[in-house]
């Protein structure tokens, strides 16, 4: 077992969390006032048709049987059929997942890396103009509603300056005219830039502010003072003594903020019409496509939990004080 034991345990914990979350969702929908099928069933339908639909969703069964069916369907990824697309939800989602992953992963990695680097620099230059300026600016962008920021970016860079496309992920015209793979990649990247900036800015500022605080704290630790007294170069003291230790709590905080940034992802996808899970969730909700909405939510939750596990495991390898057996 050895080193595999920790990741394994984390995956089991994650599965339990997923199970709990989806159970809450199940109860939520059953406990909520109103018929969960009211959006599917047209009042004008005959009682027989209503009963048929009811039966097809298993709603005529006792609660625990419904729960069993619900869980079985979730774990076999049998998420029902989308009304809008008239095809299985899992197929609709399968096409959307890569788009969301592309946007979300690149934004997360970018904001983590940039935030840690900049936070380290401003903490090191404590009480300088640079620190005050970046802290205040960081705070402003951190507290800015992400969709509003996105709208302003669209206004400035897409509408006014016409540098980037206003929405979407690809240029249909270009793709139907038979573009080369290279052109297609460049096209996607071109579409990606604005949503990426939108999504990155808020969480990047959060990371930077956290890193600053954490680093300021760590710089008071004896081992940092000792490293300075040893006459090690500033860069070494900053990077491998102060920053290396300051990163650890920032990673934990990053985990805690993940579910909030997924929310930001939904908003970003919506304003840029980025064809990902979040946009689909919004569309499904507006169009009352209940199975699709639930499927989107399931995938988003699964993604959050997976991300938490991955970062948690990374953390365990970064901090030698965490032992594996």
């Amino acid at each position, binding site marked *: 077992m050895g080193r595999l034991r920790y990741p394994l345990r984390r995956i089991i914990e994650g599965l339990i969390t997923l199970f709990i979350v989806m159970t809450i969702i199940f109860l939520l929908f059953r406990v909520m006032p109103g018929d969960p099928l009211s959006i599917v069933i047209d009042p004008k339908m005959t009682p027989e048709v209503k009963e048929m639909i009811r039966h097809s969703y298993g709603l005529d069964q006792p609660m625990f049987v419904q729960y069993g069916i619900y869980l079985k369907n979730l774990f076999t990824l049998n998420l029902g059929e989308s009304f809008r697309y008239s095809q299985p939800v899992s197929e609709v989602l399968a096409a959307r997942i890569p788009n969301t992953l592309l946007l979300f992963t690149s934004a997360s990695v970018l904001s983590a890396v940039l935030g840690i680097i900049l936070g380290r620099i401003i903490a090191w230059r404590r009480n300088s103009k640079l620190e005050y300026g970046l802290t205040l600016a960081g705070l402003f962008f951190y507290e800015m509603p992400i969709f509003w920021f996105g709208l302003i970016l669209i206004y400035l860079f897409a509408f006014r300056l016409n540098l980037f496309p206003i929405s979407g992920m690809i240029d249909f015209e270009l793709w139907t005219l038979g573009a080369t793979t290279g052109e297609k990649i460049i096209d996607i990247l071109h579409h990606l830039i604005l949503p990426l900036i939108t999504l990155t800015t808020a969480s990047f500022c959060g990371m930077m502010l956290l890193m600053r605080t954490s680093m300021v704290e760590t710089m008071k630790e004896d081992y940092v*003072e000792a490293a300075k007294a040893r006459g090690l170069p500033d860069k070494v003291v900053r990077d491998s003594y102060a920053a290396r230790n300051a990163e650890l709590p920032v990673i934990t905080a990053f985990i805690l903020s993940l579910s909030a940034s997924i929310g930001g992802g939904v908003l970003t996808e919506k304003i840029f019409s980025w064809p990902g899970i979040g946009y689909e969730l919004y569309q499904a909700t507006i169009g009352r496509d209940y199975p699709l909405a639930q499927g989107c939510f399931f995938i988003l939750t699964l993604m959050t939990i997976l991300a938490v596990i991955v970062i948690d495991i990374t953390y365990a390898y970064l901090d030698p*004080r965490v032992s594996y057996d």
Partner: protein
Amino acid sequence: MNAKTKILEVNGVVMHYRLSGGRSVRAVDGISFSVEEGRTTGIVGESGCGKSSVAGTILRTLPDNGEIKSGKIYFKHGEIAGKSGMIDLFSLSEEEIQKIRWKGISMIFQGAMNSLNPVRRVGDQIIEIMRYKDKISKEEAQKRLERLCNIVHIDPKRMRSYPHQFSGGMKQRAVIAMALSTDPKLIIADEPTTALDLITQDRIMEEIKEIQKELKMSMIFISHDLSLVSEISDRVIVMYAGKIVESCDKRSLFREAVHPYTRGLINSCPRIRGDKGKLSGIPGEPPSLSSPPKGCRFHPRCPYAIAICREEEPEYKEMGEGHFSACWVVSDG
């Protein structure tokens, strides 16, 4: 006293900590002493008397609010910045002092337990300092590390461990190894054995003594424990409230100490040998350094205080050969 060459000379150094509201703490208030080559000078005093700030002043590793007001510190170093012989440390730039740190003077820290980076292997941290300071290859550093391990009695294999896997005594040894790693001329040991058990403390002290004898190291040994200091040092300096009250040869300290504070300290030490005697502490509390009492700083606690003690500061002067003290009562006989 035979004319031994001095390696470090501290001359009337004053160091303050600035506090908010324009106030300041006079942590080091005009102290002078010297360290001879291959010898150990011990500084003893209670917490807050400024003894650790002396170390910070010499190496210039004070916190941001520490401010050197006056005085000179001369250190005998090879050539640096075009100067040689006794170099005035305060005249050096930050870059130049950076070269003195660990090459000329290294330090064993108070709270050594926390002076190791928790996320890096102990051996790597020692190798790192050697490679930066001496510009040697990895292999050479590794070899030197093994030699160091033998000196401080650590199994070289353990050097691949992280600090949290070490016991207190082991960490202390690692920190000593680190201080020795670049062959410094002077080592400042600031309370190197506090927080250790007596048996471990004894073992570490024996090792320090051995190393000092073998490498002919000059050392400043700082501690609150009078008996520990008097065991290891050649000269003992007693500090009280930012000032030196007495300094003498270690042999004469126990029998010939004259300052009432030193005598009080001696009588406060519980002893395991000889007569059980009566413990007698010093009444009262050490003064706050931000508003020390007028006159002799010890007078509020001194059983022999006379009128002048409350008014004027006593002069620090030679009582006998190599025996200095600052006390009105004693100097007046």
